[in-house]
């Protein structure tokens, strides 16, 4: 799995969760950039991402993620 493919799949998960087909992701995207991304939706989002990539993040990973770039890196690490 390369980064481009991960970004595409992530983007579609984000679009589903926030019901907004206009969402575009970069490595620097954070919760501040997406209006509905609050602590509650964060839970749904993480679980939808886990589901999409068939992997589970640990507690530490979930609390440590700072932006989408870190999320992509984690997914790439796991995919190796």
């Amino acid at each position, binding site marked *: 799995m390369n980064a481009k493919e991960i970004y595409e799949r992530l983007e579609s*998960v984000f679009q589903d969760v926030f*019901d907004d087909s206009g969402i575009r992701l970069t490595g620097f995207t954070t919760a501040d950039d997406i209006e509905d991304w609050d602590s509650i939706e964060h*839970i*749904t989002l993480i*679980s939808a991402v886990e589901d999409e990539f068939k992997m589970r993040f640990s*507690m530490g990973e979930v*609390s440590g993620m700072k932006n989408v770039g870190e999320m992509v890196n984690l997914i790439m690490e796991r995919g190796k």
Partner: protein
Amino acid sequence: MRELEYPFEAAYILKKKRSLKKKLLSDGTARVKKKIAVLGGSTTSDIVSVLELFLLDSGIEAEFYQSEYAQYWQDAVFGNPVLDSFEPDLIFIHTTYRNLDAALNVRMTRQEADAVLEERYSRLEQMWSALDRKFRCPIIQNNFELPFFRLMGSREAYDYRGTVNLITRLNMKLYDYAAEHESFYINDINWLSAAYGLDKWFDLKYWYLYKYAMSLEAVPEYAFQTANIIKSVFGRNKKCIAVDLDNTMWGGIVGDDGAENLEIGQETGTAQAYYEFQQYIKSYKDLGIVLTVCSKNEEENALAGLSHPEGAVSPEDFTLIKANWLPKDRNISDIAQELNILPEAIVFCDDNPAEREIVRSQLAGAAVPEIGEVTDYIRILDRSGFFEVTSLSEDDLKRNEMYKANIARANSLARFESYEDYLLSLEMTAEIQPFKPVYIQRITQLTNKSNQFNFTTKRYTQTEIEDISKNEKYVTLYGKLADKFGDNGVVSVIIGEKNGDTLTIELWLMSCRVLKRDMELAMLDALAAAAAEQGISRLVGVYIPTAKNKMVKDFYPDVLGFSPLCANSQGVTSWELDISGYENKNKVIKVN
């Protein structure tokens, strides 16, 4: 909506909840509005948003109050202005094992463990009484699920020092309270978490990170079960099941294989599976669910299959048997018509995906579960919650006989010269009286499920009906109707509010199974008499249109002789009747 029918894909619902909600809200369905207070002992946000979807899907548009994090007990016992002014129609207390703080240890004496149990229970009871005093509305309370670890292993179950033991005993106390209190319902998460699997249910990451008492993946199952109770409380249950026969009720095709070669009974594994399913369907009858058949078959073959000596059912168990070659959607809509119910009150159960698709696409509203293989049938019907029982009245137990008697009446109609002759031949007797405690449950049930003959479609909780029956301001009447074919039980309800010399009819409904029997005239006679006795000279009736009550749109003027009073742009009309010198209209029913 297919995505929200059991068995559903939990992750999909969670991910798409926003767009699902949008879709449901824009589908043009008319929904009842309800206010639901969710008092949480842990995080409730996703629970509420998924619950909202399931309720929308069953015709309930809910507005929610949610406690601040884990403030359920404080909200209930001490109140809070937001909750107080919210005036909920229903309260759902979302508590779990996490709120128990069991605090047992193996050095405790029996007395000390009992004291923990009593203390935990009395905290709950204090909360329920406070809520009941203040809000007088239905309460749904979770029981407690088992813990995710067992310090003493299996001994936890039977040793008073075990948390498993404590939870089991506490749950029994909850059930005793529920048995003694109407409008108090237990949400059995002890069963649900077991069915889901405790290891999966307790995904501790969700507790430590987000304070969810269960895994996020389990939330849709939990919300679905809760929604089923709410649906049932608000009268949205299904009323009838229509089953296919070949490969649904037995293995094989009766027309090809012959009744003697069907797989049903105890001989093979497959035969046993169908037998258990037949038993399950048959036991619906005792809950007041109407059993019918909808099968592509020659009728004689269908009857031969249903009469199979090894089977659990017999033809007499079914109120209607549609065995013919018409499209199934036609048969289902005929069943609805003959039983005087709406298609959306019917569950259609067929092993054949093509038949399911036809009914689903041609007949809006009918429930068509994806029942899978014969080994799935019971589980899927059962878990779908179509018939979730929240109250079980005498009438429910007799319902199948009542529908059968109705069909016998329809058959005898053909032999009479005039309709009045026919009505007289029924030898009808009615009991029309002010509300009595024994009928309060049935009256409440009727106010929540009658849609067609219902002038205002006002819904009431049991507590409201109790209050009204004791309030001097109101004139109340229930009507029971019996005839030579059987007793229909309580079929009509009127609530009128007094205001000077006027009585305004705020509720008048009648069960459709007694349409065209002049029961409405007998009710009006009784209402006029009761009103006159209290010095009232004028009745005012109101009609509030809904998608389902067109039947009574012109009933006040056309049948009951009321004169127009006013009308507004929403189609709400008011009518009046001067009752000085009122003459009884009913000539065919003997009253009281």
